[in-house]
């Protein structure tokens, strides 16, 4: 059985294709979404999900969130005594999702389809794949998130010929894809995006507004910055979610025994967000341009990702397309469901026989070239794309280059990914050189062939026809651990003591109560303290029925105190 996993910045979800439909798998708490948060408990046990996220503001040094934003970089996060890379942290989340799926399906799960933002670069994709391997999952396929969302949406609308736009604003990334369905073919026409724009950036707006508001009071020492930031971020997330439904929301924090509160109105927030909203437009325009489709040709605008719940985002989309976006899919769940559809396709499920999906390569790939200027000088470092962005994959493309200097003995290609005319602004993936016989400039032709396969693997093949010389290169994972090292890391992760799954619900409730205790002052704090005491004594009694009842009561009490909990 292949599972489909949506590994998100804020939340993750897992789903499976079973009996002709995709279904989400609940976690140990009965929730469909599992926060992408990892923490170390006071006992040294590993916490994943809601329990970890609730401890974010109370134990900032023992909790990691939003690590997907650093996927593909060497940035490490310290949890307790050990430092972890983003892929190790992701692997912990994936491991938990795998365990949930195994518990739900009653069989071991070893293969998965994992979603990534369409605009993830080659490096970020490789890191995600590695995270899957670290969690003991064979990653059958990486699917672009908007494509997955479109699969979840399109699978029910196969009969019509239609084009639609998926607007996917998640916790940390923004993707826009335009898809076309005809004759059972789901074809991605264009994918664009911004892999550094998401709900977290909107939280940061509130955080910095709050810091600005209490500039003097919240001045802290550098070693406390992180803790303060975590407190502010947790509170900003809460306020932002509230602003999606209310006209105003107050951001309350307790820092060093003092309470600070500031009320933001929806207008305030819209004003703060103007610059970020502006950044939403460019990818949409580019997707339309690249796919050669006019807004009026689109039959539907599909919103995906939790951050599209923000009214300001919805309003912008409505204005851009002069119509209301579709409510056909649940923005939080569509991606995981789509991943499950892809898993079903991969395992050749009978119900999906008549469907074919094609995806695109969202960025241009090419080599660096030099050009002769009219005055005879050379301009080096120009980008010559070979595979242009938004070409249907798998694809092979070839371009012929010629030598630049008399008697040149070697031709050197830098392989780049990006859209800028100057390679210095693009990402260097690899390099390749090939010897050529010395001849006058321009007399030697060198063929350069790029192949981009369905899994995003890039192969470069350089060939000099005159000598028959040939060089091949597969762009491999240069940063990642190899062989033994990977095995060692996997063993190290497996050796971590994990908090028992069945006790997760209690741990999460306890973490929430503790957070509330720190979030309030005065009478309310005393009240929460009292509740914690009661709950602890019932936990000691070890009567499952009584514990479940007490937990539900505690959650209700906390809901009444701070508003409903969210995922």
């Amino acid at each position, binding site marked *: 059985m292949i599972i489909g996993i949506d590994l998100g910045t804020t939340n993750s979800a897992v789903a499976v294709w079973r009996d002709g439909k995709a279904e989400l798998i609940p976690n140990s708490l009965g929730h469909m979404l599992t926060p992408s948060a990892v923490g170390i408990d006071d006992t040294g046990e590993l916490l994943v999900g809601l329990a970890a996220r609730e401890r974010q503001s109370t134990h900032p040094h023992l909790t990691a969130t939003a690590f997907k934003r650093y996927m593909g970089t060497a940035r490490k996060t310290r949890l307790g005594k050990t430092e972890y890379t983003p892929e190790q942290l992701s692997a912990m989340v994936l491991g938990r999702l795998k365990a949930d799926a195994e518990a739900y399906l009653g069989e071991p799960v070893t293969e998965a389809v994992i979603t990534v933002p369409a605009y993830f670069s080659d490096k970020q994709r490789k890191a995600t794949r590695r995270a899957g391997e670290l969690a003991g999952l064979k990653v059958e396929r990486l699917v672009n998130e908007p494509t997955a969302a479109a699969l979840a949406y399109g699978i029910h609308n196969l009969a019509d010929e239609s084009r639609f736009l998926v607007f996917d604003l998640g916790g940390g990334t923004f993707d826009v894809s335009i898809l076309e369905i005809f004759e059972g073919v789901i074809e991605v026409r264009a994918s664009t995006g911004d892999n550094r724009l998401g709900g977290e950036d909107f939280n940061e707006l509130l955080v910095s507004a709050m810091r600005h508001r209490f500039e003097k009071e919240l001045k802290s020492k550098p070693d406390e910055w992180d803790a303060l930031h975590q407190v502010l971020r947790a509170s900003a997330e809460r306020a932002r979610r509230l602003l999606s439904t209310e006209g105003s929301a107050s951001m309350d924090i307790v820092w060093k025994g003092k309470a600070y509160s500031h009320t933001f109105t929806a207008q305030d927030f819209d004003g703060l967000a103007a610059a970020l909203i502006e950044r939403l437009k460019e990818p949409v325009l580019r997707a339309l341009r690249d796919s050669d489709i006019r807004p009026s040709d689109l039959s539907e605008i599909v919103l995906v990702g939790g951050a599209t719940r923000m009214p300001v985002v919805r309003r912008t989309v409505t204005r851009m*397309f002069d119509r209301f976006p579709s409510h056909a899919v649940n923005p939080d769940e569509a991606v995981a469901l789509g991943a499950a559809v892809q898993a079903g396709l991969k395992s050749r499920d009978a119900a999906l026989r008549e469907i074919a999906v094609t995806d695109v390569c969202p960025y241009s790939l090419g080599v660096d070239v030099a050009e002769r200027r009219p005055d005879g000088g050379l301009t080096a470092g120009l*980008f010559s794309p070979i595979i242009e962005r938004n070409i249907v994959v798998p694809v092979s493309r070839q371009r012929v280059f010629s030598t630049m200097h008399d008697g040149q003995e070697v031709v050197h290609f830098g392989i780049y990914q990006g859209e800028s005319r100057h390679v210095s602004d693009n990402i260097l993936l690899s390099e390749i050189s090939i010897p050529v016989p010395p001849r006058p400039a321009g007399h030697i032709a060198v063929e350069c062939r790029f192949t981009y396969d369905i899994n995003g693997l890039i192969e470069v093949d350089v060939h000099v026809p005159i000598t028959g010389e040939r060089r091949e290169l597969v762009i491999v994972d240069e940063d990642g651990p190899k062989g033994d090292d990977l095995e060692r890391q996997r063993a190290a992760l497996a050796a971590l003591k994990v908090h028992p799954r069945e006790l997760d619900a209690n741990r999460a409730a306890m973490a929430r109560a503790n957070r509330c205790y720190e979030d309030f002052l005065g009478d309310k704090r005393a009240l929460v303290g009292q509740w914690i005491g009661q709950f602890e004594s019932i936990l000691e009694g070890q009567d499952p029925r009584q514990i479940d009842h007490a937990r539900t009561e505690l959650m209700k009490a906390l809901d009444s105190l701070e508003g409903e909990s969210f995922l």
Partner: protein
Amino acid sequence: MTTIWTTLGIARTGDRSAIRRAYAARLKETNPEDDPEGFKALREAYEMALRQAGRHAPPTEVRVVSREGTVAELEAEPEPPAEKEQSAPVPDPDMLKIAESLKTMGRTHSLVESGNVLQVAREHLEILLRRDSESDDQARLEALRLLLQLPDLERIDTRNATEVWLLRLLCARIPQSDALIGIARRYFDWNDDTIEHRRRGDDAALKNRLIEREKDLAFLRRISQPGSEHYRAFRVLSRPPTQDTWRTRLLPEAKLSEVRALLVRINVNRPQVENELNPQTVALWEARLARPGLAGIHLWMAILAAPCLAVLILAFWLADKIPSDLGQSAGPLLVLAASVPVVWTVVRSGAILAYIWPRKAWKRYADTRPIPLFGFMGAGGVVILFALSTLPPSPILGTLVIALALVTIWWSLVTEELEESSGNWTWHVRLVFAGGVALLWWLVGLRSPMESETKTMLSIAFTAGVLFVGCGRCRALRAWASLKPRGRAAIFMGLIAACAAGSAGLWLSTDSVSPAAFCLVALALLFHQWTFPFGKAWPMSAIGRTGFYVVAAVFLKWSSDGAGVAIAATALTVWLGSTWFVRSGRAA
């Protein structure tokens, strides 16, 4: 044989939906997952077939077009699509402002009443751009800002239509629309820094045109700033041609080299800017630059050369007539100082004047015969020069030497080998330089209490050095050039050390610095300047200058007179400055 049609499994057709159906059917078997190669072939066939079927929109699109209107229709129709959502925003302050502005222009437009803000704003801008007056820039900017602020533009359809409309409008009205390009470009994010490879048709060309125009304008703004290096040349070139008189030659507004630099820059980087200059002036200047003529500086030198020559002759004369201290010490220095502009003038103006014909002739000759002979002839002149300089001094001989030196310099100018691509004159300048040094030495020797043997030794050393440097293309130097930098550095260091040791030895044995040692140092300096072993980063001219200050110091110790020290230092500086000037003038 496989064609795209057999790959798709249908007969040749222009029907897009049939092609799509065939592709979809084949895709289920030729899955990108299992059969990537098959899929690539299928996809290629599909895309090719669609291209062959023409760029007709599929039926769904046609329907849409008829409903929404194409861009062209939008321009013609007074009803843009935005009108539907803008049902009744009549008391819009922007709108009122525009309406006011339209009225002041004497245009009451039915659109003002219609309540369609976007259309009104567009109309407004078009009218403003149609007028020629430059003073409207502010109003135009204001109008464009208003237009771009309209909420209608948030709609992608409207935005795209407006973008195309604005592109065409700005391009069509280029001088008037100059001030608006920047804002429009930033708003619609037109830039040439990303690769845009999808077919963008005329729009891409228009965009590029505007981007280039904006850059041209920025360039124009920069060069019309008084502080800019091209300011004077720009001022001259943008005005109608002035009459070419002695006055304008002597006191030109812009130097020849400045005008040349500006024209080259415009031709290479911003060809469109030439339209902003006065075409007649440009044509005249280009003609003037095409022939190696006389610039103001040459005339100045010619004018100065006459009194200098008189001083020179006077110095020779005085040196013999007045037996005073002044005559003793200042004589050679006067000679030195006065001869600098003379040599310089002849090099600059004399050689250039007598240059075109012999050079052409030489070129004709050189095309058919091996060249080195001519180089050696230049060097030969230098040899004779040195041979003469060993004879006892006399005014007649002095004149002869000067004349010979000038001829040698002239000859080397004519037969110089200018490297086509890089404009590298160094070899030749070096020869002239060496000849000049020799000449000076000899003149100094006229009055110096030097032993005849020393003088001979000095002359032989110099001759050897100049021959070595002057015939730069001979085998020895080529071998030197082929050495690895490290080897060259080692040899060079060895040479310097030998010179130093030799000087020290001579110093100790004769208690005055021997001219031989001095000439060895000079030789090393000349030699290493030609192929300096430490790479190009080293400031070569600085080394050359330093070298000659060393020479000057030695010379001054030798002349042992306060006034002489000062004058000689000045003379040497002037000399060095002039050689620098020759070089930089050439490079431009």
